[in-house]
């Protein structure tokens, strides 16, 4: 089980609390987490990454264990504590006014 923190806009869209959990098969990567998240909440498709290219949307960032994972490969293994559900993967809306 992996814990995922969602930004407010996406909580409202998906009708969830601030944190959701997903189950993944295989290595715990951002790509695997997003695949599971979008399967569980189809309305989130396209809101975090492009639906065709899977490129991260420009104003979305990924944090884990107080590190910025936004520019890491989405196939890189997440820290063990995230994979074990002890720490969440944070999906953050960039500070861009509004």
């Amino acid at each position, binding site marked *: 089980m992996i814990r995922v923190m969602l930004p407010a*806009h996406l909580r409202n869209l998906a009708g969830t609390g601030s944190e959701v959990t997903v189950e993944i098969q295989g290595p715990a990567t951002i790509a695997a987490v997003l695949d599971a998240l979008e399967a569980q909440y189809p309305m989130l498709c396209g809101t975090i990454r492009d639906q065709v290219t899977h490129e991260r949307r420009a104003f979305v960032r990924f944090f884990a264990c107080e590190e910025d994972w936004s520019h890491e490969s989405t196939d890189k293994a997440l820290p063990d504590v995230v994979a074990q559900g002890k720490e969440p993967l944070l999906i953050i809306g960039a500070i861009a006014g509004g």
Partner: protein
Amino acid sequence: MSGVRVLVGTRKGAFVLEADGKREKWDISGPFFGGWEIYHMKGSPVDPNRIYASQSTGWHGQVVQRSNDGGKTWEPMNNKFVYDGVPGTHQWYDGTPHPWEFKRVWHFEPSLTDADTVYAGVEDAALFRTTDGGTTWLELSGLRGHGSGPRWQPGAGGLGLHTIILDPSDPKRIYIAISAAGAFRTDDGGESWKPINKGLSSPYLPDPTAEVGHCVHHVAMHPARPGVLFMQKHWDVMRSDDAGDNWREVSGNLPTDFGFTLDVHAHEPETVYVVPIKSDSEHYPPEGKLRVYRSRSGGDEWEPLSKGLPQSDCYVDVLRDAMAVDSLDSCGIYFGTTGGQVYASADSGDSWTALAHDLPAVLSIEVQTLK
């Protein structure tokens, strides 16, 4: 008993205003999708309880919402808008080539005959259509394939396809307009398109009378007169009597012919409404007085309508999709402002009242007349 439902898209969510046919007491519900930009909402003429909403943010892109119960509850639909083939480039603001990129839906136009068929005008400009209620979207790529796409350029708000008019007398005829490319028409259901900008003149173009490149802000048509079109261009209010083949200016005695929105009276095809805005650099009413102008002669001669509207220190804007009419007798006129007011007139514009004072900036208004 008849009633009216006003669909208000704002910078921070959607609102639904409802009244009975007297149009005196209004109930406001919302915000729906709080915090998201709602560029447009529109109901199906076939099934008024079926409403489509365009929801977006710069952070998370486009979401399509659908209601089957008149806006009480909503369901996210498919938001996958993929251009047909290799999209190529359009002009950037400085004239350099810029890749075509999907950003958002500016306008939904539900079919006149099928509640599951909806046209979507998007930025960067293209026309999409669903025939399954929003489950899938396919581009009508003949529009971009017309060949002039590389010469289209964004207006200040982006390269948006903002106007879609379905001809009730000819199901294969559709009009669309793009800022800043101009107006286009198909006569074969969207397979092929032609620019219809003859008569427009835009001094910001190297060739002011070019085939494309005009910043058309909005176009309106009365359903009983499908060959007659009215246009609010960046500057100039225009009219065509031959389905857009030729345009002539009808700005007449307007205090300024810059503006964004316009609409046509529900029962009088020659009665037209505009909201003059001071200039392209000063997006507020001239003299700080919010006035709707009405022509009962299809243009050229205009009268100010100000009863009930602020006549001092008013510096709001009225955006292109932020005016609509109901079809009650007498015709109701509605518009929203960037200051968050929604104004309505139940007497064809003679007098106005504010239905709401303090909403977020209004991006769009649509009206449903309920039987």
